[in-house]
């Protein structure tokens, strides 16, 4: 069965601190995708990143970086020098790659609060 675990329910930091959101997944598929979505107070889910299971290169996009490690089935997300605008709920998700199984399997989300 596929499963995504986000053990951190809520994290609070002060602006400019670095913060890492953890994501651990389970799947029997050899090929799969991993995602991070952000849900700001406005409610919609905003796509942040997609990672193919064959690509274990870490990625950096501005203040955001992602660490994908197949050996530990983890796909962690780090925000460097956090800002108040980063306050949101962040979801990690997993999907298969075939035509019939591209539904997203989400974790329970981590609420990040960044205080000024």
């Amino acid at each position, binding site marked *: 069965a596929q499963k*995504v675990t986000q053990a951190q329910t809520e994290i609070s930091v002060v602006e400019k601190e670095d913060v890492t959101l953890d994501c651990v997944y389970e799947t029997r598929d050899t090929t799969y*995708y991993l995602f991070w*979505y952000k849900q700001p107070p*406005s*409610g*919609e*889910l*905003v*796509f942040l990143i*997609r990672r193919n299971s064959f690509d274990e290169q870490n990625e950096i996009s501005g203040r955001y970086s992602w660490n994908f490690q197949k050996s530990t089935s983890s796909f962690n997300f780090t925000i460097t020098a956090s800002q108040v605008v980063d306050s949101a709920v962040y*979801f990690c*998700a997993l*999907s298969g*790659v*075939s*035509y*019939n*199984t*591209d*539904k*997203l*399997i*989400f*974790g*329970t*989300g981590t609420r990040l609060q960044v205080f000024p």
Partner: protein
Amino acid sequence: EAGVTQFPSHSVIEKGQTVTLRCDPISGHDNLYWYRRVMGKEIKFLLHFVKESKQDESGMPNNRFLAERTGGTYSTLKVQPAELEDSGVYFCASSQFAGVSYNEQFFGPGTRLTVL
């Protein structure tokens, strides 16, 4: 270009009543998905349309839920009769191409349903 829209944004109904949620996907998107988040839990997949056909409805909780996608455009999700446990946020997402192993899913802002 307009994103995924959902109507209503909030709905409060009494147990036993009927509610219909609507989703308008991004124009031209073949795939339409419904997801639900019960408070504090993960976002769970409900079903997936490819154009007007139900591709995967494995996540539909029971026969009180009926989803349709008229002419492959907008979709409705009807809950009849609603129960207390149906409360949550219902998200709709769309992606562009059918028959492709991966498409990015674009999410709407969700409909918050409260059943009293």
